């Protein structure tokens, strides 16, 4: 009666990421006790646990080479997101200045840069910074000019072509350009937010 139960316990191997959490001491006491019992009976899981520990130790021993440029760009992006995070960014600066982080590579620059603009709570300044980036302006300005021109010709064309210009009409024309520009930027910022939520 006891033997089949024991076998069933042994066969239910924990997932590898649970073993990783076990290594970091993140399991609840009851989970830890259950896993300890399982590990006592399961050489396979003990091997996986050992190899995870070797992997973690190996990662910790990777050599460090200074990559101050990478550190600077990431810290700049972090500051853009939250100037109040200075204490954290200083610690990050020391860390990124340390060698190991070269492994994050250029992808991190892009990723952290985007995070600066699409944090969970969208902040106005980072959003403005994002909208005023050259890459965004290359898209939004021509589109706003095109849409604004078409709207102006349709709505105020007769006044423009007959030379009946007035301050009110100029303001209306300016709005024809401004509204699509703002709408495009709002759309881009919202699209980034959606993209981030999908990644999480």
């Amino acid at each position, binding site marked *: 009666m006891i033997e089949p139960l024991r076998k069933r316990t042994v066969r239910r191997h924990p997932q590898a990421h649970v073993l990783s959490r076990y290594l970091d001491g993140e399991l609840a006491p009851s989970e830890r006790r259950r896993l300890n019992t399982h590990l006592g009976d399961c050489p396979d899981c003990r091997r996986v646990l050992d190899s995870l520990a070797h992997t973690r130790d*190996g990662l910790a021993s990777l050599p460090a080479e200074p990559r101050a440029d990478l550190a600077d760009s990431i810290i700049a992006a972090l500051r853009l997101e939250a100037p109040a995070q200075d204490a954290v960014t200083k610690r990050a600066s020391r860390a990124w200045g340390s060698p190991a982080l070269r492994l994050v590579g250029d992808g991190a620059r892009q990723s952290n840069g985007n995070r600066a603009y699409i944090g969970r709570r969208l902040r106005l300044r980072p959003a403005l910074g994002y909208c005023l980036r050259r890459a965004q302006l290359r898209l939004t300005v021509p589109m706003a000019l095109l849409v604004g021109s078409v709207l102006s010709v349709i709505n105020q064309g007769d006044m423009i072509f007959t030379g009946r210009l007035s301050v009110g009409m100029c303001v209306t024309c300016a709005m024809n350009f401004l509204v699509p520009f703002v709408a495009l930027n709002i759309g881009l910022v919202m699209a980034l937010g959606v993209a981030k939520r999908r990644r999480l």
Partner: protein
Amino acid sequence: VSIDEAPHSELADLREAPETRAAQGEARAALEQAVRSLPIDYRSALVLRDIAGLSTGEAAEILGVSEAAFKSRLHRARVSVREAVKDRLPDEGTR
């Protein structure tokens, strides 16, 4: 520094079997390659925590995610790296 003047530990290093050093270098290269192959979210988590040695809270804050989300990425990243390099780890079997 000549061999005669070298400290004892350096001499020990010089005497280390070339095969051992080659295997260590190979394992380290495999580890780096495995880290580079990770998706950026996983890679950032792994590098900040396991390589740079930041705390979970600090690393999560830097990446702008909750600690729970950060831990999930970290452990999955570690498992991916382990999968990639497991054949080069000592006494590793398969499950």
